[in-house]
């Protein structure tokens, strides 16, 4: 039982092939773990029956030697992905009761490769947040605690339930989505691996839209090899998403152990901020040495518009959100609050259905797109976004990859930053630039802060170079030797 939960996805997949474990056995172990860790609030729904049915079907295919790449692996799904017949609300009250009549392309790809669905995972409402605190289903507690203190820490966000569940060994892997850091920041806070692929790699069809020019799905996993395995399956060219890219994803597992000898890694001097934790700076320096020890050359590079990425993002993302979220009007799905007129019904439905942060962002987006302000804000942001993308294009003429911290600090206690929106936004200062430029990036757990909470390092690659990204991620992972298990699950996973 406990050995089942310790296996990585790659190990479990091999064990399923050599019949030392069955998919039903593995799924039952994870369902039990999901039930036992309900206090974390990582799951919004555990789909026991569906999971067992899918696992039994996996065992049938494995017996016939027909197992897919993810056959029998029990996966959690962020509540932003439409799952047919299973309630999907983006953790917003406005979508209460919504049961999609179709499956998102990304989750369909996973099921087509044999994966088993454990249930839906908590996230910030419409993926707008950096602590999972804006969820209408309640906050998620990180499985990590500070030594000698039982206070609940934030798992990060928006994919907080996904990262918490992978760290808590209540799913073997989980889907995430990343608009400005929503995969990488929670992965860093929870000591797991998170990959945001190049914009267009994973179809957005069936993912509840937040900011369409930025939204990308990606995996959250316990190690880099699992991330490569899962991303390979998630990515596809899809005619149902006009921004889906046709170029096939390189084989990520094939060259995973090839190393980075001879590569040039850029260290961007702008990735620092006032009040940044000195432990983060030290870890960044250590990461640089690890890459050099593996045969890479590290050089200083400049991405001069980095400091403007966050304010640019807070125009572009809310603008797109205000347009995307116009569809929630009490007519087509979700909740309706009756009104005296059609307009009154819209306004009452939306007031009742949206939480504070979502309302705030819709208002900002509406404001920056409104007559008289469009040029000053939205057009200006689109221009600075071009300059930010150009920074990356110029940097990647000189280097193969960039190494940065994932976040400016370790996780913080739940409730600490919720009062000040701008302080919360600063969490994403190092993840937003890659989102604006559309380039792939990943967070790798690289060490522990003095208080015992995980810290992550971020690698950023040029568009479509996910193979280089995971190779370097693997080097960092090996050098860091991160083996710590979240305190709240260590005893459970280690043996009962």
């Amino acid at each position, binding site marked *: 039982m406990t050995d089942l939960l310790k296996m990585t996805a790659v190990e479990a997949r091999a064990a399923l092939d050599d019949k030392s474990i069955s998919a039903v056995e593995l799924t039952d172990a994870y369902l039990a773990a999901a039930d036992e860790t309900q206090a974390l609030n990582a799951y919004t729904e555990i789909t026991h029956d569906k999971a067992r049915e899918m696992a039994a079907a996996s065992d049938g295919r494995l017996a016939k030697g027909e197992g897919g790449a993810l056959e029998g692996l029990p996966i959690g799904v962020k509540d932003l992905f439409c799952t047919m017949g299973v309630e999907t609300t983006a953790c917003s009250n406005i979508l209460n009761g919504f049961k999609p009549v179709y499956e998102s392309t990304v989750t369909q790809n996973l099921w087509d490769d044999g994966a088993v669905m454990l249930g839906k995972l908590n996230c910030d409402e419409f993926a707008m947040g950096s602590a999972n605190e804006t969820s209408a289903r309640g906050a998620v507690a990180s499985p990590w605690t500070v030594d000698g203190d039982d206070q609940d820490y934030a798992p990060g966000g928006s994919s907080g339930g996904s990262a918490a569940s992978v760290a808590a060994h209540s799913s073997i892997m989980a889907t995430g989505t990343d608009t400005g850091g929503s995969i990488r920041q929670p992965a860093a806070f929870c000591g797991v691996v998170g990959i945001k692929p190049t914009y267009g790699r994973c179809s957005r069809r069936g993912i509840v839209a937040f900011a369409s020019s930025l939204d990308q799905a990606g995996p959250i996993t316990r190690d880099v090899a699992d991330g490569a395995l899962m991303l390979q399956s998630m990515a596809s060219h899809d005619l149902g998403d006009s921004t889906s890219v046709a170029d096939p994803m390189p084989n990520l597992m094939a060259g995973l152990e090839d190393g980075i000898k001879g590569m040039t890694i850029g260290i961007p001097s702008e990735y620092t901020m006032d009040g940044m934790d000195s432990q983060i700076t030290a870890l960044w320096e250590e990461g640089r040495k690890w890459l050099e020890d593996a045969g890479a050359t590290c050089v200083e590079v400049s991405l001069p518009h980095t400091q*403007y990425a966050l304010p640019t993002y*807070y125009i572009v993302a809310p603008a797109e959100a205000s347009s995307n979220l116009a569809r929630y009007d009490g*007519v*087509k799905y979700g909740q309706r609050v009756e009104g005296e007129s059609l307009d*009154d019904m819209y306004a009452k439905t939306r007031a009742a259905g949206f939480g504070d942060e979502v309302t*705030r962002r819709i*208002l*900002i987006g509406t*404001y920056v797109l409104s007559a008289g302000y469009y040029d000053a804000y939205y057009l200006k942001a689109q*221009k600075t976004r071009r300059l930010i993308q150009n920074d990356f294009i110029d940097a990647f003429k000189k280097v193969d990859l960039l190494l940065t911290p994932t976040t400016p600090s370790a996780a913080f206690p739940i409730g600490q930053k919720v009062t000040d929106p701008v302080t919360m936004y600063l969490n994403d200062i190092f993840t937003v630039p890659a989102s604006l430029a559309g380039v792939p990036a990943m967070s790798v757990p690289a060490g522990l802060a003095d208080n015992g909470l995980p810290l992550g390092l971020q690698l950023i690659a040029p568009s479509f170079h996910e193979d280089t990204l995971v190779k370097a991620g693997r080097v960092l992972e090996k050098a860091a030797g991160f083996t710590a298990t979240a305190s709240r699950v260590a005893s459970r996973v280690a043996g009962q």
Partner: protein
Amino acid sequence: MSVDKTTVSRVARLARINIDDDRLEPMAQELSAIMSWIEQLNEVNTDDVEPLASVTGHALPMREDVVSDGDMAEKVVQNAPESMSGFFVVPKVVE
């Protein structure tokens, strides 16, 4: 840029979200704080910079203009708060 109560009220009306009167002033302060932080973009010289709307730079793909999906009215209205015979039902708009 300072956002006042009247502006919040106007924008909320455009966004079709009712905001209670006692929330207008706190919301104006929150939005002002965010917008004044965003003002730092004015430092950036963007003369002759082409606005970026899509990171891929690809033209949107074209396809044959033919029906590729559809004929599922019941499924489309399945999640509607109120529907009738394959139609969405909304409050009366014409008196």
